[in-house]
C-alpha cells in the first residue's frame, strides 16, 4: 500500500519535472539508472542472503533464543538484532510478542535499536554507497549506542 503511494508520487514528480524542463529530467533519469545499476550487485546479494538466512532458521528458533535470561541473554538478543534489519512497523509487533514471552525491558530496548539501526545483511548496500570504513564505524557506534540505551532503560524502568 505505502509502496503504491511512493510509486504514484514518483510518477507524479517525474511528470511535473518533465513538463517543466525536459532536458533536466532526462539527465536526472539517466543518473537514476546509473545509480541503480551501481547498487544492483549489493541489492541482489542482500536479497539472496536474507532468503537463505530465513530458510536456515526454523521459525521457532528465534523465540527460543529470547527465552534465555541474564547477561548472556541480553547480548544474544543484541547480536541477533544486529544481524537483520527490520523496518520499525514490523519490529514493534515482534518486540510486543517477545515482551509477552518474558524478555526484559532493557533487552527489548537494545533489541529494537540494533534491529533498526545495525544490519549485517544490509552492510553490502551501505558499503556500496559510503565505503567500508564509514559502514563499519557507523554500525559499531550504533551497536554501542544500543547497549547503552538498553542498560539505561534497565536502570530507569523496573
Amino acid at each position: 500500500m505505502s509502496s503504491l503511494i511512493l510509486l504514484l508520487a514518483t510518477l507524479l514528480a517525474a511528470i511535473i519535472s518533465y513538463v517543466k524542463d525536459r532536458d533536466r529530467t532526462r539527465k536526472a533519469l539517466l543518473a537514476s539508472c546509473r545509480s541503480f545499476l551501481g547498487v544492483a550487485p549489493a541489492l541482489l546479494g542482500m536479497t539472496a542472503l536474507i532468503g537463505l538466512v530465513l530458510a536456515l532458521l526454523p521459525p521457532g528458533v528465534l523465540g527460543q533464543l529470547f527465552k534465555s535470561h541474564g547477561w548472556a541473554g541480553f547480548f544474544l538478543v543484541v547480536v541477533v538484532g544486529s544481524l537483520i534489519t527490520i523496518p520499525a512497523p514490523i519490529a514493534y509487533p515482534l518486540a510486543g510478542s517477545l515482551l509477552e514471552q518474558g524478555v526484559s525491558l532493557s533487552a527489548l530496548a537494545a533489541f529494537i535499536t540494533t534491529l533498526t539501526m545495525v544490519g549485517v545483511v544490509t552492510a553490502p548496500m551501505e558499503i556500496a554507497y559510503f565505503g567500508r570504513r564509514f559502514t563499519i564505524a557507523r554500525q559499531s557506534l550504533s551497536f554501542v549506542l544500543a547497549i547503552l540505551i538498553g542498560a539505561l532503560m534497565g536502570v530507569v524502568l523496573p
Partner: protein
Amino acid sequence: MKMRRYRFFAGILALDLALSVFRPAMAHAAALNSVRFLWTVMLIVPAVMVLVGLFDVWTPRDVIERNLGARSGLRGAGLAMLLGTAAAGPLYAAFPIALSLQRKGARLANVVIFLGTWATIKVPMILLESSFVGMRFALLRLGLTVPGVLAVGFLMERMMRTPQGCPVILVGQVKSSG
C-alpha cells in the same frame, strides 16, 4: 561493468545450489524468500532512485550547504532529524538520499544523524510502539535515542577525519550525476 562486484551474490547462489543438493526443501524456501523479498525491494528502490535523481537536478547546492553544511550547527542537526523522522521506509531506501545530501554539501554528522533517525526514531510510530510495548517504554526509548543518534553523528564526523583535518570524501561505488 565489473563482474567482480557480483561475487558476493554469486557466493550466496553457490550456497543455495549446494543446499539444493543436500536439503532441497530448504533451498526451495530460500529461493522463495529471496524472490519475495526482491519483489518488495523492487517496489521501493527504483522509485527512490528516480526521486533522488530529480532531487539532485532541482535542488540548488547552496540550499543544502546553507542548511545542512559545515556551519549549520545545531539547527542543521535538528533539520537532519526532521528529514529522517518524516520519511517511512527501510534503511536501504535512505542510503541514496543520504549520499545525495552529502554530495550537495551536507556535513557528515548531519548525514549520519539523518540515517540514524530514519532507522530508529519514528515520531509517527510512537503510538504503534506504545500499543505493543507500553507508552513509558516508548517515550523513554525516544528520550535516550535522540541524544544518542546526535552523539553518533558528531563522533562519526570526528572518526572519519583525515590527519589533515579535512573530512574524507566518501568512496562508494555508486556514481551520481555530480
